[in-house]
């Protein structure tokens, strides 16, 4: 981490820190509001995995696109959906990024290059190839990133999407967030291979294991993969080893995980890790970090107030937008 950090501007490090903290505080706030009964539906939360969304999206342009999953809050915020629009969407409000018709599992906005998140496991793995194909046919240098979990790597869509992207050299980056569990099922119970990244060999493309708790490592690997895709060299598979600090969904008591394992991963929390780098390498002290934290909290408070004050999605709109 230190070597990479030395090459980055202080401003970039601060931005990465702010982005990860924004996602963390957003998720903590949303969880509380959900328990209070303010937010309907269900939640699949991102605490612990922030380094992946932030590290990858930091090397993307606004005109690049991403696909996401049933756990999309972090991807949406990192790609540029505003906290207001994301929060209002969770509340089912008309001002949400999907006009209240998407909800937690479908956050997205084409204006920031994010397809509404696809909550069918593996769904994005074929759709992303079409986004890449559109860029290729238009001779654009845009890039499409597919975020997916370890669970999706066992779907047929994973195979079909990666093979097609590889053979057409599509400008696509496949980012697997291996958080060790597909819902409650440990990955080692469902894959004889230890590393998803090894599967890249089957498609003739590069595959790399990345420390998904280290935002600088993710950013570095992402930058290389995105640059290759942009240069017409085709797709890369990045497997970011990470961990969700919370349950699969809001009702998950995590009885299948061991508390020692959870504690060990929390020791590697990406946010304090980067805070240490900021202090050591960029001379960003506690005072400045405190300012960032207050700013982030103000942004989240504003988002909640905005969502609360926004009108509900109009029931008369329930059956619109089915057809264009």
């Amino acid at each position, binding site marked *: 981490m230190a070597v990479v950090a030395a090459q980055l501007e202080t401003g970039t490090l601060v931005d990465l820190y702010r982005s990860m903290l924004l996602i963390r505080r957003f998720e903590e706030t949303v969880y509380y509001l959900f328990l209070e009964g303010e937010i309907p539906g269900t939640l699949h939360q991102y605490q612990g995995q922030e380094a992946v969304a932030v590290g990858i999206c930091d090397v993307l342009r606004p005109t690049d*696109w991403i*696909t996401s999953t049933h756990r999309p809050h972090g991807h949406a915020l990192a790609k540029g959906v505003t906290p207001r629009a994301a929060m209002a969407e969770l509340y089912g409000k008309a001002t*949400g*990024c*999907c*006009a*209240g*018709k*998407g909800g937690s599992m*479908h956050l*997205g*906005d*084409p*204006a920031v290059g994010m*397809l*509404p998140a*696809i909550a*069918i496991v593996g*769904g994005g*793995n*074929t*759709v*992303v*190839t*079409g*986004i*890449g*194909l*559109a*860029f290729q*046919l238009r001779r654009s240098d845009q890039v*499409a990133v597919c975020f997916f979990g370890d669970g999706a790597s066992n779907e*047929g*869509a994973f195979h*079909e*999407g990666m*093979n*097609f992207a590889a*053979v*057409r050299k599509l400008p696509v980056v496949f980012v697997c967030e291996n958080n060790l569990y597909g819902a409650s099922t440990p990955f080692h119970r469902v894959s004889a291979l230890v590393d998803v990244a090894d599967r890249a060999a089957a498609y003739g493309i590069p595959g790399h294991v990345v420390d998904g708790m280290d935002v600088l490592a993710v950013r570095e690997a992402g930058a290389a993969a995105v640059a290759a895709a942009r240069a017409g060299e085709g797709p890369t598979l990045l497997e970011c080893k990470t961990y969700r600090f919370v349950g699969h969904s809001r009702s998950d008591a995590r009885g299948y995980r061991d508390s020692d394992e959870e504690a060990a991963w929390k020791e590697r929390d990406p946010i304090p890790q980067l805070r240490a780098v900021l202090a050591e390498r960029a001379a960003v002290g506690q005072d400045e970090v405190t300012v960032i934290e207050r700013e982030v909290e103000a942004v989240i408070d504003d988002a909640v107030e905005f969502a609360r004050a926004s009108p509900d999605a109009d029931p008369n709109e329930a059956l*619109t*937008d*089915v*057809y*264009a």
Partner: protein
Amino acid sequence: MSMPDPGPPSARRLTIGEALREAIAEEMRRDASVFLIGEDIGIAGGFGGAFGVYLGLPEEFGHDRIVDTPISEKVIAGAAVGAAALGMRPIADMQYSDFLFECMDELVNQAAKLRYMSGGKVSVPLVMRAPVGATNRGAQHGQSPESYFVHVPGLKVVCVSDAYNAKGLLKSAVRDDNPVLFFEHKLLYGSKGREQAGGLDLTAEVPEEAYLVPIGRAVVKRPGQDVTVVATHLALYRTLAAAEELGPLLGASTSSFRITLLMEEGPVREAVRRLHRALVTEGEETRSPAD
């Protein structure tokens, strides 16, 4: 038998296969965002699609816009969805409609839902062409699954029965901002029809100039006062033959319903309201002799 639209003798007559090819070529010339994607569609020396509809198109349009895929139906449909969401207009090809079940997620959960889930911000203007109909190919290459897809909000379903409508409807489907499943019958592509189709003359007058046929309107093939028969594909021709035979006993108002939305307001519903008797004939599977 009074079979498909009889044009003047000098008029140009095309088969459904030729009419579809012409529609595709016209739309590709008109709009650079239109492209083709599927298995065995543009390979040099290959088939030009399972029923030859794409033959000759690579020579005009090259291979950039004719995307030959691996045998990966999920990726054909998924790539069509992704490209369409970005503003392209893919015409995707399923060699047999039976294979649509390989990509139900991409069609039903992605193509049909993205517009709604995005609050209207995303459109998915894709066309998926698929041949239906029982022939002598066995149980897995002979289904007619169009009615499954009528149950899916967000999808449009089109069934074509003659060359004139095939051309005009395919062009409308390409320009439609919604995902359109475009079902064709295997026995109706050629000029004579297969023997199983009764050796019908299946050519129809097809204007050389561009024209559109709007999606969602039935065509009255035979006016009558006794019963409304709604028919698609090969069942349309069987129904017309039956009506001819029963002529003295029964008048029939036979429609080729091009979008299977029976409950929609329109000519079919009006006819049913008027005559109070309706019969639907289509090449569906039956479950048992007792069905």
